């Protein structure tokens, strides 16, 4: 089916997230400040061996409409580097970031596809780079399967969009939140002002590391460790299992909290404007009562789970259980005209005031 330009303002395209070593395909539309008709499907597969038939089967079983899609790539596929560059024009910033990335990755600049995006007010630039051969391996089977990628963005951009759907007005740019995207393979810490990403840092902490530490500390198998971690997520009451999990993961949680505190402090030092008022935890390995408590203590701010956000509460629990849902939905709404929304909302706010 072909999507015509009209009606695209509210209806999202197909969002494809390369998340936790698998594919999450999602599509949603945004109406009246909430998601509508959201569908998310998770596929566990080997990302390096995806064929056009695999893509065709995944798209068919995901029950999505349209062939235009937006890809969200993790740092494991697209290199993420935060660079400090002098104040320059955008084209010059991108060119400088390209040279810097080629130098850091020690590859020929022509073999990389790169982009750069200023974040914050302190001169930081989030530079992205991916080998063209890797990109071809991803895109060619998708085109053969009939998909039409219209954009490839970093995973953090999709997460930023999902977490700031209710902060797109001009007046919301002073509302600063921190986001910890804690996945099974890696994690990232972001500071958002309105719907703009002001700070980004990739962290090596992962859900797999927690499981490994629980298994090692308690002497259980990985599958038992996974169940123990799940149980400690759901129940806040103190019992033997939660105590064991807390003891096993305490060091990692404290390390995460320390890094989060450093990130918030770095943001506060390098950027003007208000500080973060709350910390949102998202990601497939995200919510944990012990981690939330540790983060709240270390960062001195409220810590809340992503499902507590008003617009995310409208999503079904079945969708929220799919790993990478927040990335897929963020990528799905990448075509949403944010600038226009912001202007009209600002005018409305001014009129209301």
């Amino acid at each position, binding site marked *: 089916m072909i999507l015509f330009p009209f009606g695209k303002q509210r209806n999202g395209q197909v969002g494809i997230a390369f998340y936790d070593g698998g594919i999450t395909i999602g599509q949603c539309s945004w109406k009246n400040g909430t998601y509508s008709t959201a569908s998310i499907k998770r596929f566990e597969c080997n990302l390096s061996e995806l064929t056009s038939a695999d893509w065709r089967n995944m798209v068919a079983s995901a029950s999505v409409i349209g062939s*235009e899609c937006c890809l969200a*790539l993790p740092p494991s596929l697209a290199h993420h580097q935060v660079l400090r560059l002098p104040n320059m024009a955008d084209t010059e910033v991108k060119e400088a970031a390209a040279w810097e990335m080629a130098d850091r990755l020690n590859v020929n600049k022509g073999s990389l596809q790169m*982009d750069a995006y200023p974040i914050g007010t302190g001169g930081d630039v989030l530079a992205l780079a*991916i080998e063209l051969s890797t990109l071809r391996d991803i*895109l060619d089977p998708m085109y053969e399967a009939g998909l*039409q990628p219209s954009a490839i963005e970093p995973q953090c951009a999709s997460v930023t969009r999902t977490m700031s759907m209710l902060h797109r007005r001009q007046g919301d740019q002073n509302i600063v939140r921190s986001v910890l995207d804690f996945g099974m393979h890696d994690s990232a810490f972001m500071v958002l002002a309105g719907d703009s990403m002001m700070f980004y840092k990739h962290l090596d902490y992962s859900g797999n590391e927690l499981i490994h530490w629980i298994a090692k500390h308690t002497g259980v198998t990985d599958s038992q460790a996974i169940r123990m971690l799940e149980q400690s997520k759901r129940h806040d009451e103190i019992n033997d299992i939660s105590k064991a999990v807390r003891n096993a993961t305490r060091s990692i949680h404290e390390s995460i909290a320390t890094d989060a505190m450093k990130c918030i402090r770095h943001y506060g030092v390098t950027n003007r404007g208000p500080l973060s008022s709350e910390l949102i935890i998202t990601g497939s390995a995200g919510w944990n009562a012990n981690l939330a408590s540790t983060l709240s203590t270390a960062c001195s701010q409220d810590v809340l789970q992503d499902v507590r956000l008003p617009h995310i509460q409208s999503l079904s629990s079945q969708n929220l259980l799919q790993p990478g849902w927040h990335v897929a939905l963020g990528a799905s709404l990448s075509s949403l005209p944010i600038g226009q929304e912001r202007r009209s909302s600002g005018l409305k706010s001014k009129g209301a005031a």
Partner: protein
Amino acid sequence: MNLLPEQYVERSKNKARGSRVAVSIIATLCVVAAFATHSRVAINGAVKKLVKTQVQANSALELEFDASSLELQKENLDSFIQRYQNEEVLFPMGDLIATLANLLPSEMTLEELALDVVNNEAGHGISGRLSGFGLSDDTIAVFVSSLQTKEPFRSVSMDFSKSRTVRNQRARGFRISFHIDLERPWSIAENIALVGGAE
């Protein structure tokens, strides 16, 4: 932020553009097909209507032709009536017969009436003969004398009178001759034959 290479962006745009063009062409073809179907249906309807109208036109032409013929016949008839009414009746035979019938008494029966046009030195006229039978010679004589007084009967004479039997009764057969002069103007009143005292 977009890591999609320009060549892939163009590829996606071209594919989307091609798909839209294909859909537009299909939509256009559908519209054309619908329009053609509608036109075909309209043409078929118009042809049927034309045939029906032509049949009605033919009927109207036939009627008009018939009307013209009737009009012509009417004109001819009017002309004939006018001509007939303008013409003077030369010989009112009905009035003559009505006069004879009224003069004929009930005791007499007329069997023959013969009229012959004669042209001789005496002039142009009609020679007539009446034959039949009567109850008696008196009755026949009364009829002859009555006929002599009536215009335009002239030279009324009884040729003969002889006995005969009719229905086992004795009667007198007769023949009467008369002459009507056509060269002399005469008039005769329009008569109505009375039979048994009734018209």
